[in-house]
């Protein structure tokens, strides 16, 4: 059964990696979903919210609610942290304002992270993807702990043909991105990154899969700085590969 979903592509994919957005549309199509893209969307407001600047986060949250309220169907977000922002963060942001809170909850109920949507809502793990070689998965903190989504991306990767999934040691450790944390505490962020890259390197996998673009930029940036050839890819790219 075909259904129509709303793509909230996130400001990072929109600005840096449009090809991930396109891959995601193709994967959603294959799972039987027609995708709509409300063009007035920008950012969910998470960076300011997490930094404590709720006054700056609010207009963006209101904007996002207004944009997506005019649409129908599930809202799909290819990022654990942005999905957690809409599902949990908005409730916190508007907790003292019953009217906005109600609208925020209406949006939260329709919002799903990409892999969560595919596995839990569309009941799909095998989407015909093929990826020759090793793959290693890093569970992003807000996806795994904030949304409790971990078995879904793993099940999706397990179903990829020809892929050998290798476990990442200390997989649950944070990569050190953490939004403004990555610029505010460069030394600490750098230590987390060093540890994560070391663990990844030890697996011998050329490819690290993530489901959150913040972690992707951080990890890929770390690999580039070290002159390493391994790649970090978004799970949508893997699921789109043939």
């Amino acid at each position, binding site marked *: 059964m*075909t259904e129509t979903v709303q793509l909230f592509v996130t400001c990072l994919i*929109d600005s*840096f*990696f*449009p090809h991930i*957005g*396109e891959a995601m*549309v193709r994967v959603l*199509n*294959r*799972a*039987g979903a*027609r995708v709509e*893209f409300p063009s*007035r969307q*920008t*950012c969910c407001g998470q*960076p*300011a919210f997490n*930094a*404590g*600047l*709720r*006054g*700056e986060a609010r207009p963006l949250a209101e*904007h996002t609610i207004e944009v997506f309220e005019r649409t129908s169907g599930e809202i799909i977000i290819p990022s654990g942290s942005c999905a957690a922002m809409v599902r949990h963060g908005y409730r916190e942001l508007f907790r003292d304002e019953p009217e906005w809170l109600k609208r925020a909850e209406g949006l939260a109920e329709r919002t799903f992270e990409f892999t969560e949507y595919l596995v839990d809502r*569309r009941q*799909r*793990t*095998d*989407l*015909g993807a093929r990826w020759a070689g090793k793959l290693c998965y890093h569970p992003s*903190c*807000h996806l795994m*702990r*904030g949304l409790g989504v971990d*078995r*879904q991306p*793993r099940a999706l990767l397990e179903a990829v043909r020809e892929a050998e999934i290798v476990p990442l040691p200390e997989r649950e450790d*944070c990569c*050190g991105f953490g*939004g403004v*944390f*990555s*610029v*505010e*505490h*460069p*030394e*600490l*962020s*750098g*230590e987390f*990154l060093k540890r994560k890259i070391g663990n990844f390197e030890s697996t011998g996998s050329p490819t690290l899969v993530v489901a959150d673009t913040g972690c992707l*930029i951080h990890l*890929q*940036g*770390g690999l*580039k*700085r070290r002159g390493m050839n391994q790649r970090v890819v978004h799970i949508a790219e893997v699921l789109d590969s043939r």
Partner: protein
Amino acid sequence: MKTSDFRRGARDSLRDENLQAALDNNAQRRKDGRLAAIATLPDFEERRRRAHAVKAEVVAHLDEYLEQFIERASANGIQIHRAADAGEAISLFLEIAQAEMAGRRGTGATPLVAKSKSMLSEEIDFNHALETAGMRVVETDLGEYIIQLRGERPSHIITPAVHLRRADVGKLFAEKLNLPYTEDIPTLTNAARKALREVFLEADIGVSGVNFGVAETGTLCIVTNEGNGRMCTTLPPVHVALMGIERLVPSLDDLALFLSLLPRSATGQKLSVYTNLINGPLPEAEGSTRAQVRHLILVDNGRRLLRNSPLAESLYCIRCGACLNACPVFRETGGHAYGSIYPGPIGSVISCALVDREYDSLAQASSLCGACREACPVDIDLPGMLLRVRAGLIPPMTASAGGKDGRRKEGAGLPVLVKLGLKGFRLAAANSGLFGGLQRLGGLVSRIASPRGEYMHLPRWTGWGYSKEFPRLALHPFRDHWKMVRQEVVETGNPVNRSTGEVEPARSQASGDVSLAARFTEELIALGGKVTPTREEDLPGRLRELLKSRGITRALVDDAGAGYLDGITAVREPDPSVRAGVTGALAGIAESGSLVLVSGRGGTLTASLLPEIHIAVLKVSAIVPSLEEAMKRSEIRTAAAGVIVSGPSRTADIEMTLTIGVHGPGELHVFLVDDAGTD
């Protein structure tokens, strides 16, 4: 405390290789220990949720529970005092000390205070205040003793000397205790034991914290591993306990629930070695040479304000330290970088309310990864609390804590450039047309800045450029691509079986067919205790045999122990030169290999504490399956004090290395008397 102070502290920590090795060691061992201990509780998640609900109830109705607790504890003979803030708590203690000391020592003598670990005492800067008042205060927990000798403050709420390695302690003891330099941890531990033993025996006042107060019974529960907590609450003629007003649980049942969570989360133990349950002062002959006096100082110091703030959930904390051990920031920085005596995730929430408002900037020291919440045995939403502190949703300070006004300040500690950047981003992102234009402009600029590579090099001062490259923006954002996307909706693949991919919850090991005595024996042996099954008529002979084999001819006894001695001299006064103690036991707990001992039976508490060897006689019929069952014994409520003993006294305060035999007995023998007639 400015963010820059934390950053400087963090940088110092990162450069300190010794500290880094110590912290890595701590993180790994504590994590493994906690996970292994939690695996023994099949219903851990359910207990965690229940614990959260119990604490929510207590904090919501704090005054009612406090009133009930105070009424019961007073009726039990504990003298209750209430302090609104740190200053009042100190004054109250000094008044108590003055009154209790009057006429006890010659005028001019320096009062000696033996102190067991208490984070509340650190919060109110207790030691410093007492020393200023002319008292001698000695920390008796091994870790606390070490840092007191170094003139430092704790770097962790459970393992205060976690930042040190054995060589640091070796050097310290060589210098301060005139010990030949050694890195042998048992030798170092023994040196501290010797030095502190005199303190316990001579102390005028014993001071302790309180882990839990039980409202329905007025019981104080204090858990320790080394035995110093037992010493401080048993031997000195006066015991003063310090307790935060939120540290309450409604009932003994609830206490059992929290005791199943606290040691597992803190140190990876099923139960701490000594779980002290104190109802009232000990009568003569139980502890010191005269009837004991007990005081309790209940301290608010900002807790009521915290309760009425958006951070109320942080009062559910039971100070287990699991969030520190799980935190990747703490793993890099250790506790001292935070400045506050409450470090780590929970410290970054409560320090601004309980210690100093300036600590509100500590909330920035987190990547919000949520490992803290996952580790919290009370399921406190620590990332959520950190976000609220960042948003300035913190309580106003009490006057004495040196706070400024309660004005809401968003983003405390955020660098100005970050603030400006986020404000600029908001202005751009509030309008999708402007946002798209800026995205395209950014794409063009970053293409010029880095014509070849997809990632650009940013200078170190940007923060990002310190350790990683930054991606170029796309020339055309996704919103431009979208117009060209052709969709072809075809359903691929088969719907998954709902059951595949589901992660099965861990099953507990079946243990239903193992008898209680066998389980008790197995657990106690795992803790380093010895168990000898025996018939009652053989007991005196076997006891004599054991003691004689050690060259021991005299033993401290309680009433039960006295009845079993044959050919061994019974000693009833607490004599520190006697090497063995023989006691009965009220009950045994199979699931944790623990003994339940209570006062009122002729000196059980001292005979099981002072000597280096403790021999207990336990009847098989007295073994119960669980802590919950043991708590149902009426003696737990009626005895002046009791203790649940789980193995020989131990510490891991130096490099997380387990050392047996600190202040309490280093050997624990249980003679298991089969009185069930199944022999």
